[in-house]
């Protein structure tokens, strides 16, 4: 759409340019929205990412959105279990997906039973038992976690995490 005859030989395309400006306007809005979601934590590390799953005496705090190759921590709290040992069962596939590197406090005993790994912790002399699992998911995916508290106050929580690439 050349406006008039020019001595200048330049290959303009004003119609293309107009379309492009429209697309650019839309993409600015899209980028702004993505950044807003990012601030809220939809891509990890933010208020929308922090989550708690609870059942009875068992509370698990986790991040809904995590990144592959970036560390994340799972906090498990068992309220007032008393002094007897506490047994937690976590499904093996999830521990594998999370590539758990450290467990604090050190469990007294770890054993494998079917699909689960069983961890036995010394009961705290007073208050709650707090267990942290540090891991680094190796690949993107949607791992499902099932954590079970065994014993008299048995409880079970399940949740799903999103591992972004």
């Amino acid at each position: 759409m050349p406006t008039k005859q020019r001595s200048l030989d330049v290959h303009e395309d004003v119609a293309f340019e107009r379309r492009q400006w429209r697309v650019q306007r839309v993409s600015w809005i899209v980028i702004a929205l993505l950044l807003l979601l990012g601030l809220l934590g939809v891509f990890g590390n933010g208020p929308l990412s922090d989550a708690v799953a609870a059942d009875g005496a068992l509370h698990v705090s986790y991040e809904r959105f995590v990144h592959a190759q970036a560390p994340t921590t799972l906090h498990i709290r068992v309220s007032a279990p008393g002094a007897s040992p506490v047994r937690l069962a976590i499904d093996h596939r999830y521990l594998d997906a999370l590539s758990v590197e450290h467990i604090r406090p050190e469990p007294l005993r770890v054993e494998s039973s079917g699909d689960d790994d069983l961890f036995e912790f010394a009961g705290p002399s007073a208050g709650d038992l707090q267990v942290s699992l540090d891991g680094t998911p190796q690949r993107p995916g949607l791992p499902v976690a099932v954590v079970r508290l065994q014993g008299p106050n048995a409880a079970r929580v399940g949740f799903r995490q999103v591992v972004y690439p």
Partner: protein
Amino acid sequence: MDAIIRGAVVYLFLLALFRLTGQRSLAQITVFDFVLLLIISEASQQALIGNDNSMTHGALVVMTLVALNVALSLMKQRWPRVDKLLDDVPLVLVDDGRLLHKRMDKVRVGEDDILEAARACQGLERLDQIKYAVLERNGEITIIPRSQQ
């Protein structure tokens, strides 16, 4: 496999991002463009390399980037549409001495930028000495002066 996917994803992501935001060039004059270039390259380096610092990984990433560049330039040569989509089109901003303000606003180029380009590449002093100014595909502004009578 990882290296090639990383290379391709980062390349195409940056390409799409720059084209969609309308960022014509990072090789421009201002200090801030330079800082931006440094930061972007630092941030994308992590995504390109990941945890693997081996020479094999680095070589695969570099080969992927170069191959994509060649492939895209072949496509641009073959299909003019692809060329436009990837590399934009030049845009006349001053037409026979007349400033096209609406276009200048759209591409975020001011009168100052045009005068600066006129001084830098033609040694011109005033706006009325400019016959044509064109925003080129690489983000540079080129100036054609009025012929002196």
